[in-house]
């Protein structure tokens, strides 16, 4: 019996001490971690919201691509939406934030979390990459395949057209969502 207590108790003791220590460390780091998360989100929103203000996030249920949206307000009037989208890239899902005008035209896009290949799909993280989508969605269709791009643009995505098509598909779905669900 003594032995049981010796063995079990000692392991329990080590565990418990460890747990307390971790609890304390957690208490120190938890606020920092939360702050990091907030900062990341607001930085991302800043990147696409332009001069407008973003409201609270609303979650969207039952949509495969659109996960949530923020209403944009400029000078007191509604200036469109920022959508949180999930696209499928070469190496799994990609998180996309895109700002739309109320008529569904794309104003700004940013690629967030993704695991695309550096040098290929990851190039889409660069703001310049998204230029081909900007201004499409309402008057012009979102470019969906290479044939709809200029030769220069097509060369730039050579070897990474899956990423390109994945983003395009997500943006188009977002645009449609704005037009059909939010625009009214």
């Amino acid at each position, binding site marked *: 019996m003594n032995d049981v207590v010796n063995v079990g108790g000692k392991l329990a003791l080590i565990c418990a001490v*460890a*747990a307390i220590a*971790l*609890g304390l460390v*957690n208490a120190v780091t*938890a606020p920092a971690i939360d702050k990091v998360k907030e900062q990341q989100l607001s930085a991302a929103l800043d990147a696409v919201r332009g001069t407008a203000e973003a409201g609270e996030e609303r979650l969207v249920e039952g949509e495969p691509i659109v996960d949530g949206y923020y209403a944009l307000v400029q000078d007191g009037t509604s200036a469109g939406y920022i959508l949180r989208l999930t696209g*499928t890239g*070469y190496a*799994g899902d990609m998180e996309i934030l895109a700002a739309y005008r109320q008529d569904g035209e794309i104003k700004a896009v940013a690629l967030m979390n993704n695991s695309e290949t550096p040098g290929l799909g990851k190039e889409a993280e660069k703001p310049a990459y998204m230029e081909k989508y900007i201004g499409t969605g309402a008057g012009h269709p979102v470019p969906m395949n290479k044939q709809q791009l200029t030769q220069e643009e097509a060369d730039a995505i050579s070897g990474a057209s*899956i990423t390109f098509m994945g983003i395009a598909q997500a943006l188009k779905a977002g645009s449609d969502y704005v037009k059909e669900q939010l625009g009214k």
Partner: protein
Amino acid sequence: MSYVGIIITFVFVENFILTKFLGLCPFIGVSKNTESAVGMGFAVTFVTSVASLATWAIQKLILQPLGLAFLQTITFILVIAALVQLLEMVIQKISPSLYKALGIYLPLITTNCAVLGIALIAVRSNYNALESFVAGFSAGLGFLLAILLMSTIRERMNTEWVPKPLRGVPIAFITGGLMALAFMAFDKALLRNLIG
């Protein structure tokens, strides 16, 4: 994701050895001959299956309700270590022949990245209990596949005159590298196209 999807993911697309780099120490260490490689593969499969189920329970029943996510690492590894040790003792007692086949590998598995790795990945992917189990099982299968193929190739290398400095571990790594090159065919996009 469907169960088939999980299986394909962990056997091919995210093969623990060839794309995720989890469990390399036993992969290199125990792949010299087919027999022990297969033994190791089955042992790992067994442990990953049980461990991912057990850690799922810990996560859902203790850590999440109590808001103790930061204790994930410590509780998971504790469970795994205890599980493996228990398993070793039980097998040794109940089936000496199985112990003879698996026993020597079991202690190695405690510190096998694959086991903790699948537990953490299953939690991060928000799998339910059965999905966690299937994920653990298929991660083990992926390991088994990789180590079996590796061992047959290494057995073949035993009868070739591989340059001296490259013999043994280096050639195992390079073989693994070439296998990984071929396994790059199995990417996420393939998985998505295949199962929608």
